């Protein structure tokens, strides 16, 4: 018995371990002998970006990455170019009624959706109805077409869209991917699966979505109805696009540098110079239109209700130096709440205030913050001059957190105690609705100055689901913002937006920080990359040169 036990081969665990090692070793050998892991020159472009959509129904999701993916899957009625002009796409022409409330679109004939359903006027109606249907649970598109009251199918190739009031931003809204036209067949038969299986008529067809990992699109060979603004006609030169969701900046950069990705989104500012020096890599950039990255001052609460304190905070910050340091010199410092790439941007506000610590001190003295406490902060009637700036660590980008710390240090010199406080997203939402904060920050990309109404109109308070984080209620400002969207005359619009921007800067309602830019790194074999008016990379004209 005993002697038998001695001769027994090593235990089961050892055998298992040995088998596992053999398996792993053979897997490793397979790799070494196998294909080059760099993306093969098969015409499929790999694009690594930092986040994934939560739903691919363009009328549901508000995310930039959804627009990035859906732009290739869905066509829009019209296309917009960064110069603010509109071009035919699925609509060959359109007319607007004298009262600006009825748009008549003449549609392109012969367009076929990916599921073989034909495109016609009913598809336009179905898509717009879907956007405003409460069952859709739209997080953004419904807001874009808030004035939509209904569409009438005049004939298969003509549709009339009615608005409750004039809306100068309507065509721009229609040009975005968020109002990409869906297949009516898919809207009715695929109704429970629109998030997971988007069906449009765009140049690339949706193939699959591996959650957290990638989305695969493939060429739609029948495509022959690109926007009039595109550089070519017919199907894409690319055979497909694979979107990879790589959260970590350094991993995305590594994938580009090693050729595992053809293009990477949001190239970190610190890497731009490195990429520039390389012959194999290129940097593409597009300044984002809409509301620049800005810091809102709560004008209806606490110390910042006093305009002198807001002016003092602004004067105490050396913004040129701060922006340069935080963004490695990559982003342009902002002067207006509106980005320079947006229609109606007013260059007159440039240089309208200076970094002036002495002025900051005088203003605070005037405002009565003359005392000093043990830590050197200013006080009034024994109360310290302290400001609360809450943020969500999950959402706030790292460079913005660094900037906030810079601002904190600068205003401390002026005797202001600024707390930049990480806050749970749910709690933050509550505080924002209640207005229990002094400072907040964000940016909004939109190729339309009407974005100012969302962030500064007295009707757009957070409690009403708006974005007015300065909590400002100014009848003057409301007047300009409402007037600007009620007319389609560009000169009248620009004048009204000019007044609004000057007002916001003059009264220090917010502090514009920098103009965000979409920075994309690409291998040199990527050709023909352009950006949408909302600074998103467009894949329709892209090709891969055989290197």
């Amino acid at each position, binding site marked *: 018995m005993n002697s038998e036990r*001695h001769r027994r081969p090593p235990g089961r665990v050892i055998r298992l371990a040995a088998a596992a090692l053999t398996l*792993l070793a053979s897997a490793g050998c397979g790799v070494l002998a196998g294909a080059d892991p760099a993306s093969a020159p098969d015409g499929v472009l790999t694009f690594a970006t930092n986040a994934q959509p939560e739903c691919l129904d363009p009328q549901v999701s508000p995310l930039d990455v959804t627009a990035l993916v859906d732009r290739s899957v869905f066509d829009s009625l019209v296309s917009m170019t960064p110069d603010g002009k509109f071009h035919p796409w699925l609509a060959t022409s359109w007319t607007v009624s004298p009262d600006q409330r009825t748009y008549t679109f003449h549609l392109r004939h012969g367009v076929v959706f990916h599921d073989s359903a034909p495109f016609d006027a009913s598809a336009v109606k179905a898509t717009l109805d879907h956007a405003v249907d409460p069952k859709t649970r739209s997080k*953004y598109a419904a807001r874009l077409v808030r004035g939509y009251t209904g569409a009438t199918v005049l004939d298969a190739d003509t549709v009339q869209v009615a608005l409750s009031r004039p809306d100068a931003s309507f065509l721009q809204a229609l040009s975005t991917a968020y109002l990409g036209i869906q297949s009516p067949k898919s809207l009715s038969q695929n109704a429970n699966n629109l998030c997971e299986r988007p069906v449009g008529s765009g140049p690339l067809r949706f193939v699959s979505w*591996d959650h*957290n990992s990638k989305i695969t699109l493939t060429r739609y060979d029948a495509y022959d109805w690109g926007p009039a603004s595109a550089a070519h006609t017919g199907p894409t030169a690319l055979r497909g696009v694979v979107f990879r969701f790589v959260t970590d900046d350094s991993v995305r950069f590594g994938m580009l*540098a090693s050729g595992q990705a053809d293009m990477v989104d949001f190239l970190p500012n610190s890497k731009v110079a490195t990429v520039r020096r390389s012959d194999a890599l290129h940097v593409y950039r597009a300044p984002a239109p809409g509301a620049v990255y800005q810091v809102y001052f709560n004008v209806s609460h606490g110390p910042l209700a006093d305009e002198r304190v807001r002016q003092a905070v602004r004067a105490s910050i050396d913004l040129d130096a701060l922006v340069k340091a935080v963004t490695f010199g990559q982003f342009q410092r902002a002067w207006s709440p509106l980005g320079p790439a947006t229609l109606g941007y007013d260059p007159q506000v440039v240089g309208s205030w200076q970094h002036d610590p002495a002025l900051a001190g005088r203003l605070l003295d005037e405002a009565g913050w003359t005392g000093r406490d043990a830590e050197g902060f200013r006080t009034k009637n024994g109360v310290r001059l302290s400001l609360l700036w809450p943020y969500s660590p999950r959402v706030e980008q790292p460079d913005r957190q660094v900037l906030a710390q810079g601002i904190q240090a600068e205003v401390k010199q002026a005797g202001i105690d600024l707390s930049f406080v990480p806050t*749970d997203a749910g709690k933050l939402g509550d505080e924002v609705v209640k207005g229990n904060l002094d400072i907040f920050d964000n940016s909004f990309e939109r190729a339309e100055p009407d974005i100012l109404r969302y962030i500064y109109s007295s009707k757009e308070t957070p409690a009403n*689901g708006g974005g007015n984080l300065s909590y400002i209620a100014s009848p003057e400002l409301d007047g300009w913002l409402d007037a600007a969207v009620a007319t389609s005359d560009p000169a009248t619009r620009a004048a009204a937006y000019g007044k609004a921007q000057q007002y916001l800067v003059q009264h220090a309602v917010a502090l514009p920080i920098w103009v965000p830019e979409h920075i994309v790194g690409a291998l040199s074999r990527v050709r023909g990359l352009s950006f949408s008016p909302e600074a998103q990379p467009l894949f329709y004209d892209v090709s891969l040169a055989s290197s």
Partner: protein
Amino acid sequence: MTGKARWLAARLGNAVVVVFGVATASFLAVHLAPGDPVRTLLGPQALTGTVEQVRHELGYDQPLLTQYLRFLGSLLHGDLGTSYQLQEPVSRLILSQIGSTAQLAVAGFVLAMAVAVGLAIATSGRRPFWRRVSSLFELIATASPTFWTGIVLLTIFSFHLNLFPAAGAGLRGLVLPAVTLALSLVGVFTQMLRQGMEQALDQPFTLSARARGVGETSVRATHALRHALIPVVTLSGWVVGNLLGGAVVVETLFTRQGIGQIMAAAIASRDLPVVTGVTIVSAVIFIVVNLVVDVVYHLVDPRLRTEGRA
């Protein structure tokens, strides 16, 4: 009812109580967290009308107790609900992701165990120099954050040597994630195994095995190793927790599919059905593992077997 059946029934009864408790706790966690859950779900730019409509549809306008009873009711029917965000059944969502997490966890565990067993056999109570080298490696492996280990491996083996893809499915794409996960466990495994083996090697049964003429490798690999495995088995709960937790980090870094990622996104957006669904499934995995561990105990440790019969 035999003793074994009674034991099993008691265990299953416990399991039901635990799952019920876990479901209740995750329901409360989502509902009692600050902030408006519907606004968090829909984001700042949804229209107020939409928010109120969805609040009604999801039953958030009902008293908490009503919501809780409804939630328990559908749970009893085996219905984990539909994801608010993805608008997809939670069970389908979990099924589509859990395979990938299991693959990663099993590969990481087997790899860590294989290396640990090899190191323990080679260095227990001998080769002082290599024992010290091994100890240093274990210390570094244990102390390094998973995220950092992953970045280092990626930089070397993917970005510079181009041997493995930074993001990709299949066996080749599994290598770096599995190694990263294994490195977070291998240090603890090796130290426990070595300690156990060194104790075992001092035991009379080792002496008697040697006296019978058993070779050194065989003594270590069969007699001492089996003795040393017991504390590792005890650690299984910790290991499963670590594997699932580590998998979240590894899945993020290597952009792999998996339930960890889904869970992280669901918590951020207050996607209640996904949060409770993944929590319940994790609890079930935990319970099953512990049950298996108990059985394995009986196999590995003969003393428990005789006690059971007595």
